[in-house]
């Protein structure tokens, strides 16, 4: 197997070089930004001269760690010396490996001893790497989810030390019931959970980074797959924030259409929630009824947005398409049955003794903890805090609509489930009002084709089915957002898991995680 050349075909060395301060500054957006006083962005610098051979400016220490075509040698930082003061790599906690951890190219069939020696000399790779098998000393190590690196933090050390009679159980990313790719490392004492370490990031797609390189229109498309079950809410949060940045007035008809479609999607998302909660508890029928419910709604939305799941429907200043005849006929047909059908689906679980006994009193999240955790949405309202963004900080036409914000005090899984049942009822009320009060008019504000907002910052939040979906956007005057931060409710909902699970049995694990309704797309961005 040929080794990688140390110089690439352009004559530049492929070893990483530490960054220089000059390169760092040059790395900022090299676009024209208005030098407004309020702007925080670095003013566009004159581009630095082309880097001389041997000096890699603006490069971080390592590229993708998973890049198999990495250079063969563990990269020596002592490359041709950078003339400017070589700034150190960003601070890392004490026990991280040196910047130059490279797997190298493993030469199979040659000398296993040499390979082992070289691997032993390097910091050990993560347990996900298949090449770790070469270094394995016993079979038992293969199955323990103990991290193969020295524990990095206080909490990690506390978690990964076993007491008497305890064992680790890895409810791994591939599991029939973890709502997506979520890894829960459980510390069990028999059947009782003692501690949990959730590991997320399996679905991380770098949406925020991509959005920094996208137009304001592309952002809407990128942000859809975050909480893919209820994607209009992310679009709404993004669009709301951009409208604040650009001072855009959305026509009233567009606002009503937004509310109508979003509330429909909230019902669809809650139907699915009920189905999955029942499925994780072992009932295989409610999920199919929930999907029937969702299918009708999603077909309705497909007739007006063109897509069944990732809608790409909201635009800055309005929505993409007006309501049409098919949508109205489907909606009218569904509304005539909606209340009865949703009640029937809910009573399938409400009146099921086994379900109620498994959900009542399980995973209790009290009011104070919920506030300290930053939990929002149905989970917070089930713990007694009546915080709903639609009422707390109204946006769109919600001030004109009449609806209640259901709240419960118990904070257990049953309360979280019942809150969502109540929310479905409220959503039907809102849809009814929207249909009655739908104004005429345009559905899009007049906007220039190329959107360049003034430099500034804005925050906007909407109430999604899982909680408060917020967006913090910074504009630097160019046609791409300078920083696009998405705050997803599922992340904080999931963060309560290490507080809720300990003390409960393994069987309740999935019930509790399910009742919090996490969507991993949003958690991982």
């Amino acid at each position, binding site marked *: 197997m040929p080794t990688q050349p140390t110089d690439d075909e352009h004559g530049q060395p492929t070893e990483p070089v530490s960054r220089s301060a000059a390169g760092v500054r040059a790395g900022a957006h090299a676009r024209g930004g208005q030098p407004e006083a309020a702007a925080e962005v670095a003013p566009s610098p004159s581009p630095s001269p082309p880097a001389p051979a041997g000096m890699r400016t603006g490069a971080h220490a390592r590229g993708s760690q998973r890049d198999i075509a990495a250079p063969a040698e563990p990269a020596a930082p002592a490359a041709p010396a950078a003339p400017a003061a070589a700034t150190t790599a960003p601070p890392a906690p004490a026990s991280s490996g040196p910047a130059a951890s490279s797997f190298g190219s493993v030469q199979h069939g040659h000398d296993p001893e040499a390979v082992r020696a070289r691997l032993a000399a390097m910091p050990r790779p993560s347990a996900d790497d298949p090449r770790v098998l070469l270094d394995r000393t016993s*079979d038992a190590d*293969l*199955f323990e989810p103990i991290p193969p690196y020295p524990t990095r933090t206080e909490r990690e050390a506390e978690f990964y030390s076993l007491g008497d009679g305890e*064992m680790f*159980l890895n409810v791994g990313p591939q*599991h*029939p*019931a973890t709502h997506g790719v979520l890894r829960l490392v459980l510390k069990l004492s028999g*059947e009782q959970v003692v501690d949990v370490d959730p590991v997320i990031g399996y679905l991380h797609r770098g949406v925020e980074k991509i959005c920094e390189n996208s137009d304001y229109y592309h952002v809407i498309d990128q942000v859809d797959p975050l909480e893919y079950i209820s994607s209009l809410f992310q679009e709404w949060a993004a669009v709301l924030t951009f409208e604040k940045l650009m001072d855009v007035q959305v026509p009233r008809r567009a606002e009503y259409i937004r509310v109508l479609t979003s509330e429909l999607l909230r019902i669809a998302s809650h139907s699915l929630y009920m189905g999955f909660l*029942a*499925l*994780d*508890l*072992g*009932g*295989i*029928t409610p999920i*199919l*009824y929930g999907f*029937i419910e969702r299918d009708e709604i999603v077909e309705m939305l497909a007739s007006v947005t063109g897509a069944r799941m990732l809608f790409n429907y909201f635009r800055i200043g309005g929505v993409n398409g007006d309501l049409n005849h098919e949508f109205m006929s489907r909606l009218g047909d569904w509304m005539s049955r909606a209340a009865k059908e949703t009640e029937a689906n809910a009573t399938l679980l409400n009146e*099921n003794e*086994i*379900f109620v*006994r*498994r959900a009542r009193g399980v995973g209790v999240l009290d009011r104070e903890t919920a506030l300290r955790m930053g939990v929002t949405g149905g989970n917070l309202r089930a713990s007694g805090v009546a915080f709903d963004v639609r009422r707390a900080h109204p946006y769109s036409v919600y001030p004109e609509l009449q609806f209640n914000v259901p709240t419960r005090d118990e904070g257990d899984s049953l309360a979280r489930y019942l809150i969502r049942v109540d929310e479905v009822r409220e959503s039907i009320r809102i849809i009814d009002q929207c249909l009655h009060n739908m104004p005429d008019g345009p559905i899009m504000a007049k906007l220039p084709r190329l959107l360049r907002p003034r430099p500034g910052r804005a925050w906007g939040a909407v109430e999604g089915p899982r909680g408060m979906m917020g967006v913090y956007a910074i504009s630097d005057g160019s046609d791409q957002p300078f920083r696009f931060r998405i705050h997803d409710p599922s992340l904080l909902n999931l963060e309560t898991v290490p507080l809720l699970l300990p003390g409960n*049995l*393994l*069987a*309740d*694990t*999935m019930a509790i995680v399910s009742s919090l309704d996490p969507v991993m797309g949003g958690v991982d961005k």
Partner: protein
Amino acid sequence: MSFATRTWTRMSIPARLLAIFIPLAVVLAIATVLVIVVLGGPFVDFLAANLPLVRFFVTATAVLLMTVPTAFVIIYLELKVIARMNLRIGPNRVGPWGAAMSVIHGLKVLSKEDFAPTGVDLPVFTLAPVVTYLASVMTLLVIPFAPGLFGQDLNIGVLYFFAMGGLTVVGLLMAGWSSFNKYSLLGGLRSAAQIVSYEIPLTLSAVGVVVLAGTMSMNHIVLAQSGSVFDWFVFKQPLAVIIFFIAATAEANRAPFDLTEADSEIVAGFGTEYSGMRFGFFYFAEYVNVFIVSALITTLFFGGWTAPFNWPWAYNLNWLDFSNGTLWVGIAFVALVVGTDVMAVLVRLLGGSTWSLPGTMILGFAFATVVAVGVVGLAGFIAFDWVQGLFWFMAKTYAFVFVFVWLRATLPRVRVDQLMGFAWKWLLPASLLNLFVTATAVVLLSR
């Protein structure tokens, strides 16, 4: 390339199969005829001298052979019934109305790779499905399917049944322990705890029946319920029926007590590391378990093979004279040919021209066979009491199988501590109470 190789590569697959099997069949036929001619006589004499042994072997073989089609039928039933309860259709592609689905499942598990993961205890790992399967199957020996149609009429039949049924827990524990997997361990231990806990209410509620019937022989328990439908023990032991049904659901690891294989918590429980035919054994064992538990409920409480009502008119088929065998063979042949044509015509008329001629004829033959079997079955039903008994027994058993499937479609799972609490705090005292009341009543009424 030689002529043989060239011809072989040019043949289609059916041709290749025929080219292998026809010569093989010819050789085997000749060999069989020779064996029969040479050794046939002494062999038959040996068998005639040891009739009970013959009976035992035939019974055991029949029972073993019966389990797989039973499991197939119940699996298909479950798929279709649960689908209908979920407002969907279920399998409908692989046969008429998807009926060949179970066969396809069976072929699928046979065709998978047979491997054992690293770290398993291989002898225990391999034997666990065998133990579980055999534990379920051996109980079929004592179940009376019809008057005279049972494996053995042990006079400790009920005890034997529960003893064999309890061996399942050994198999599940073996599976859970030998798979080098924490999920399997949890599943195996859960199942051990569950089955052992629920065996006590199960047996205690059956003891009430034993006290009423005065015997542990299953055949005699059924005979004690013959007479009228109100002789069935369900009317004398209503509490025991309920306890027995719940405990039986737990014994069979069926919903809502299926936490040993709760796939939303512990992936597949004890069966996580099993695939292929090893898993197939567990799979079949579960459905055979459902069948035998339903059969036991039928036998103990619902009269076994006794009919709930008598035919209102007298009948007999003694006027049929079977002495002229050739005549009857001719009648059967003519009936099948005529029937095939009639059915083919019907299929053509009803199904339109979507079927080709061979397809129509095959379907016609299939339907004609079904009708013929139905006619013969009806004749048997009228003529032989064991056919009647078998029919009633199967009807009642499958009614309970349907109820088990219905429960699975409807109910979520019970948590393990709720399960154990229910068994020890509710079912056990209830079954003791039932036994006490039954025994008191029997003593008082016999004075």
